[in-house]
């Protein structure tokens, strides 16, 4: 299973389906129009039953009138489709709320909620996607889940009350992994178009029903008119219904394939077929299965984990393959019995969820050790390398201030595999398909984070302070100016909170820092519009405080924007217009990105070589490594915006070329990985975080972790 291949396949499928759908829609419009003309003619007196018997019906059609009617019908279908697409494009949150979902507070302390949020956080970190918001469908007792949203940045995960309460942690993990696969494979986008057109077709049937009811109820008017209305309505109902059924069949067959794909992907993410199979068995065992009761549930029928709405034609129009088939594919030795027993809530695997239940307990730890580390760290910072040459204010400062890590350095604990060039290459090959090593790494990452930071990341106030703390400068003068800005322009106490978190941030190894940003996203999404504006302005000020944009600062802000923007930002290509271009068409932009990556090599000669290697891989006209002065971040951002129009396959080629350039010297530095992640975030190609060989946070708040503040 290949993420990009799957996306391209989805694209091809969409093309075919759009053709099929278009044919269906055109056929429907023609049939409906003919029917309307016929009814009007029959009741208007220009046609009679005798004409029908004589077979001269076609010759009597007034083609001008036909064109008019067809136009109106086509407008209705198009309007209905566009409306639906517009509604669904508003983002995952709108969909979740339409289904009656309630947003779960990221800092909830309710054990069940905490478990769900932890599972989602882990999965998001493991796959390198921004942590999505989680919605709970309170009133739904059936076990089910869904994913909605068009980009990883605005995706949401929804779970029913039944799923939250009735599944074990492993089963929940399987379900969440399944939904993440829908996000990563772009299934939501595919379904958006189908659902849109389907709605347009459905509308004809709905109008028919309204007419029938109006005809049946209307007391006044001539009975002949009433009969005309009723006949017209009935006809529209029949054609609309037939069209809906046909369109549904196409849509359902695609949907079923995507479910198999997501099931397989979930196993790949978790390496635990029993988890997801167990969840499916639980669904089979409950009396309501996965069925949802919300009146608007059918609108999203394709997006659920298991069949959420019973369909009229049974298997043929089912959005999901039968439970038995899915379980058998996951667990060939299944005995055919559904598990009736609900899992007990507390089980060994949930240990991680209780590690820090209360922020009160978390902060109640004596703070003396942290202060000690603080002192140590700030000394290191003061002695760290400062900017060398004078750099223009808007140029990107490539100095990373850290030693390139060598593959043979010690590992992060026993669980984390060391970083080798192969592993980076693997990460590129596996973009969008995290496996269980990523998941385990994400779990240990979250576990090792200081509780203060973990909890700060979970609520809007602390999450802002956390991001600010990540941006605080090592230089005391600059830092003072940064804090002064926070004190004067932001909510009271935010500057103090930032300063409170700073020592813990400093003591945190570099590899934890971007994941911290990822973890902050759900909380930051809760800022109101004015608050977001203030936050963004403060972010810009903090970054610009020292007169340059450092590489880490750039990476952080790109990842933040990609995760917060959720499709609302200006200049974002429209959903329909993206993904059509090859690297060759954007050669200059690709070259700029490769320059950035190549410049991260220590040696000028190697940089040049790395650049040429990348260019070669992309089949671009051989160019020279761009001069360093051209690397200002505004140009970089402009180029990345352009590059978002690349085809998925081309995006992978580009990221692979970047990886190849990074790997030329067989060394991978944290800075290089961060840049790769930032590029991936902007291009909406999630890259799982790689375990680095930096010492873990608890064992050493050491020089490398402090230096990059300089």
């Amino acid at each position, binding site marked *: 299973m290949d993420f990009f291949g799957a996306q391209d396949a989805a694209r091809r499928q969409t093309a075919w389906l759009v053709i099929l759908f278009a044919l269906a829609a055109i056929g429907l419009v023609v049939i409906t129009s003919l029917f*309307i*003309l016929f009814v*009007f003619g029959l009741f208007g007196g220009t046609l009679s039953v005798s004409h029908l018997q004589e077979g001269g019906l076609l010759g009597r059609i007034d083609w001008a*009138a036909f064109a*008019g*009617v067809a*136009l*109106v019908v086509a*407008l*209705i279908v198009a*309007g209905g489709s566009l*409306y639906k697409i517009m*509604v669904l494009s*508003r983002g995952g949150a*709108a969909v979740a*709320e*339409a289904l009656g979902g*309630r*947003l779960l*507070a990221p*800092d*909830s302390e309710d054990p069940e909620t905490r478990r769900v949020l932890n599972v989602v956080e882990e999965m998001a970190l493991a796959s390198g996607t921004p942590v999505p918001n989680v919605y709970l469908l309170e009133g739904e007792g059936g076990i089910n889940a869904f994913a909605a949203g068009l980009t990883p940045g605005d995706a949401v995960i929804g779970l029913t009350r039944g799923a939250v309460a009735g599944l074990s942690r492993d089963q929940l993990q399987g379900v969440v992994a399944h939904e993440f696969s829908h996000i990563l494979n772009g299934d939501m986008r595919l379904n958006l178009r189908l659902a849109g057109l389907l709605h347009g077709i459905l509308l004809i049937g709905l109008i028919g029903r309204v007419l029938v009811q109006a005809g049946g109820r209307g007391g006044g008017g001539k009975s002949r008119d009433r009969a005309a209305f009723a006949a017209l309505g009935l006809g529209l109902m029949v054609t609309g219904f037939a069209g809906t059924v046909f369109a549904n069949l196409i849509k359902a067959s695609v949907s079923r394939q995507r479910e198999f794909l997501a099931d397989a992907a979930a196993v790949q993410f978790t390496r635990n077929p029993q988890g997801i199979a167990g969840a499916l068995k639980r669904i089979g065992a409950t009396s309501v299965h996965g069925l949802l009761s919300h009146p608007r549930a059918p609108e999203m029928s394709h997006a659920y984990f298991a069949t959420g709405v019973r369909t009229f034609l049974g298997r043929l129009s089912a959005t999901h393959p039968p439970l038995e088939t899915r379980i058998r594919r996951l667990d060939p030795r299944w005995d055919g019995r559904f598990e009736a027993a609900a899992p007990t809530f507390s089980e060994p695997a949930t240990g991680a969820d209780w590690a820090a239940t209360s*922020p*009160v307990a978390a*902060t*109640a730890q004596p703070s003396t050790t942290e202060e000690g580390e603080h002192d140590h760290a700030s000394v290191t910072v003061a002695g760290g390398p400062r900017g060398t040459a004078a750099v223009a204010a808007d140029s990107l400062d490539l100095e990373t201030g850290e030693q390139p890590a060598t593959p043979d350095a010690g590992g992060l604990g026993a669980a984390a595999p060391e970083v080798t060039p192969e592993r980076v290459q693997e990460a590129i090959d596996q973009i969008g398909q995290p496996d269980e090593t990523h998941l385990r790494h994400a779990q240990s990452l979250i576990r090792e984070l200081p509780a203060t930071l973990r909890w700060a990341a979970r*609520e*809007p*106030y*602390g999450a802002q302070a956390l991001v600010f703390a990540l941006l605080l400068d090592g230089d005391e003068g600059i830092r003072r100016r940064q804090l002064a800005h926070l004190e004067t322009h932001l*909510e*009271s*106490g*935010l500057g103090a*909170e930032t300063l409170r978190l700073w020592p813990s941030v400093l003591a945190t190894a570099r590899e934890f820092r971007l994941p911290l940003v990822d973890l902050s996203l759900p909380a930051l999404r*809760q*800022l*109101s*519009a*004015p*608050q977001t504006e203030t936050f963004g302005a403060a972010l810009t000020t903090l970054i610009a405080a020292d007169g340059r944009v450092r590489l880490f600062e750039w990476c952080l802000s790109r990842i933040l924007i990609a995760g917060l923007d959720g499709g609302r930002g200006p200049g974002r290509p429209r959903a329909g217009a993206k993904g059509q271009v090859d690297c060759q068409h954007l050669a200059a932009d690709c070259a700029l990105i490769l320059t950035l990556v190549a410049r991260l090599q220590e040696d000028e000669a190697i940089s040049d070589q790395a650049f040429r290697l990348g260019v070669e891989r992309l089949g671009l006209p051989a160019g020279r490594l761009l001069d360093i002065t051209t690397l200002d971040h505004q140009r970089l951002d402009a180029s990345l915006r352009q590059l978002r129009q690349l085809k998925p396959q081309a995006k992978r080629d580009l990221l692979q070329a970047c990886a190849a350039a990074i790997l030329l010297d067989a060394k991978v530095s944290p800075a290089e990985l961060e840049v790769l992640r930032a590029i991936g975030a902007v291009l909406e190609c999630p890259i799982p975080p790689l375990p680095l060989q930096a010492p873990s946070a608890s064992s050493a708040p050491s020089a490398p972790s402090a230096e990059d503040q300089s």
Partner: protein
Amino acid sequence: MEISTAVILTIALVAIFYLIAIYNRLVALRNRFRNAFAQIEVQLKRRHDLIPNLVEVAKRYLAHERDTLEAVTVARQGAVAGLSRAAANPADPSAITGLGRAEGVLTGALGRLNIVVEAYPDLKADANMRQLHEELTSTENKVAFARQSFNDEVMTYNSYRQSFPQRLVAGLFGHGEDARWLEFEDSAAIQQAPKVSF
């Protein structure tokens, strides 16, 4: 079919879609401030959870100040009740006003407790007390922030609801009433409470 009929049909259709769009927008905006209230709820709950601990620690030192402690406990109960009522429906103006009043009372009671604590250096120096107080201060900052977010969303909702043509149909759609801002009564007190020196 006549052209005029087609035109009328099209216009009617557009009007229907427009109405649906208004309805959906109203619902979405209401959901936004409801979600924003959930933030306040989390932080206020935390505040309410911290207070019994605070009272417990203070009790050991303040044998003669039963009334002050009693007042805090009673005020907390009122605030807890107000919160659960407001959380049930943040769109209910009277519930929001009630919560604002109850929280105002609680803040006042805590303020008086703080003044009393000033007179007991041992209590002031107690490690638990300091820890709890810092926690409370930070929670109050978070409450203030969440409240700002909620009020922003309420304002967005209200102004959308009141503008034309939404105001003509909002009532029909069950959005006939403005949502209420959450203001803690005597909001000067809440801004001072965190600043009590330790």
